[in-house]
């Protein structure tokens, strides 16, 4: 799988390159700003791009804007945004253009190589990877706006949260220390309660996020 990395910190660039190469990714380019990122994406057409939200010159949301540009130009490229600070608003902005092929993770999570790799694989494969904190905020708002969500049991809510993060059923089962069958049952219950029709695997996850988002505005 081919990736491009954009981060203005040289240490972070090299670290990410190393981790991803070791995990079997091919790193086509590692750049330090948004312009170079655009160039690299155009040149290499990677499966995914790992992008730091804050880059020169203003160090605020260059990465986010670059991601929007790439999405408009090359929608087939998965976009995984990494942020030093949690900004739910920025994550939502990113999801506004659709929840497929995007991810938003705190940089802290990169510490767990497996989490980063899994997130990148999901994003490249058309899924979503959302930081648990973002999902928690979305869920909180969804519960406040729609008391009907109260009909979800606490366990179902946890499952919905993990789905929104982008985890597969088996990953959810591992996280919650239950069997896959139990997770499947929860997922069906959640979809019934949220009024979502069952569909294929990936799309359901993306739609779980959209269902949360839908109530956030």
């Amino acid at each position, binding site marked *: 799988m081919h990736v491009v990395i954009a981060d203005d910190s040289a240490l972070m660039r090299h670290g990410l390159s190393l981790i991803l190469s070791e995990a079997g990714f091919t790193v086509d380019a590692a750049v330090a700003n948004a312009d170079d990122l655009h160039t690299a994406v155009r040149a290499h057409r990677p499966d995914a791009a790992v992008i730091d939200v804050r880059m020169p010159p203003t160090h*605020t*949301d260059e990465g986010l804007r670059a991601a929007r540009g790439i999405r408009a130009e090359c929608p087939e490229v998965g976009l995984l945004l990494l942020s*030093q*600070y*949690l*900004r*739910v*608003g920025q994550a939502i902005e990113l999801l506004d253009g659709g929840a497929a092929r995007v991810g938003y993770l*705190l*940089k*802290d999570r*990169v*510490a*767990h*190589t*497996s989490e980063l790799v899994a997130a990148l694989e999901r994003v490249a494969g058309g899924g979503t990877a959302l930081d648990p*904190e973002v999902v928690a*905020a979305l869920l*909180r*708002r969804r519960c*406040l*706006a729609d008391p009907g969500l109260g009909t979800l049991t606490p366990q179902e809510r946890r499952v919905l949260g993990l789905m929104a993060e982008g985890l597969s059923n088996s990953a959810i089962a591992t996280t919650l220390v239950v069997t896959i069958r139990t997770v499947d049952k929860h997922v069906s219950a959640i979809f019934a309660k949220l009024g979502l029709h069952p569909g294929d695997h990936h799309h359901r996850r993306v739609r779980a996020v959209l269902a949360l988002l839908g109530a956030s505005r």
Partner: protein
Amino acid sequence: MILSVATVTTGLLTVAAMASRPVVPAEATVPVLAVGLSFAAIGLICRIQLGVGGASLLIGVLGVGWLVLLASASAAGSPAFGGAVVTNVVVAALGHLLLGQVPSRLSGAAGRKVATAGYATAVAAGLLTGPPAARPVGAALVALAVAGVFAVVVLRIRESERATARTALPVLLPAGVALVACLSATLAGLDGDPPTWLMHSLFWFLAVTPVGFLIVVARRALAQTRASRARVLHAADAERRRIERDLHDGVQQHLVSAAVLLDLLARRLDGTEASGTLQKVAATLTGARDELRHICRRINPNALADDGLDAALAELVWHIPLRVTVSGRAGPLPSEAASAAYYVTAEALTNTVKHAGATAAHVELARDATGLRIVITDDGRGGADPARGTGLRGLTDRVEAAGGRLDVRDRRPGGTVVAARIPCTS
């Protein structure tokens, strides 16, 4: 503390002296009472409200001076000459102190001029209370000295306070009144009983003029308090940012490094007995990082610095476990005004969540040419009281340091309204 007790005592002693000395002329009762009480009140205000130790000492001493004057003037058939001279010298010395102290820059050349005038007044008073032939000279001296003192003081205050005609009014007006009163009392008293008219003229001088000075002192003290409060807040904000940076760039990064190492270790020991414990350690570490992140966000929300108040408030409501709507926009603001508005909102919403039992809250922003108005309402049980607890009090300080006003009140039928007005020019 001792000083305020002294001033109260002086006031009470004055009243007591009046009661025990029926010889005080009837027409002097009101001024005597007024002066005694005004000393006590002004001394207390100085001490408690403004924390001006020196000024309250002065007022206390002036009160004692007034008692001396009272005693000398009311001693029936006493040798009024000597008493009046002594009293006047005391008053002149005190006037010197007073004028030298308020404002402090008056000491030096101007202070010496004022002192000269004050001592001239004392001599003049002596002449006035002496042989009838010397009285016109004394009267002229008194008038000149008093006029000179006022001129110097008013000029000095205008200079040192950069006061305009309007702000110097509290000094100019009583000074003018006192001048006219002194002159007329002096002239009218030429044929009367020296102790009585002396008392009248001194009443005006002592009772009216200090009030004017005190207003100026109070204004300056208030301005200084406000400025120092702003400085303290500014320093606190800088410290807050520093702590956040230290936590984020230091502690947080160490925790991340530890997590990386733990991840490596976990992979090496995967499937062994230790891996269960390692997972628990990893979970604890993740919990610590989450908590630290929340603390960092609370003490220095980076959205505020990066994208301004509107974005920061939008981000804030994501983290409040309550249905919160925001209407209106603040637009670009100076950083002090933006942080005041942000922390008012954050604290008000936190209070709502903690205490109000509310189901929803609303934040309304309105910006005009003179400033920002921010109103936070909820539908809870109300009863917020800025006098209790440090949260709302701290917010009041913050808003007032930014030159604004904070208003907390209950809403009908239920709920709390926190309204802040923060001045800033666009």
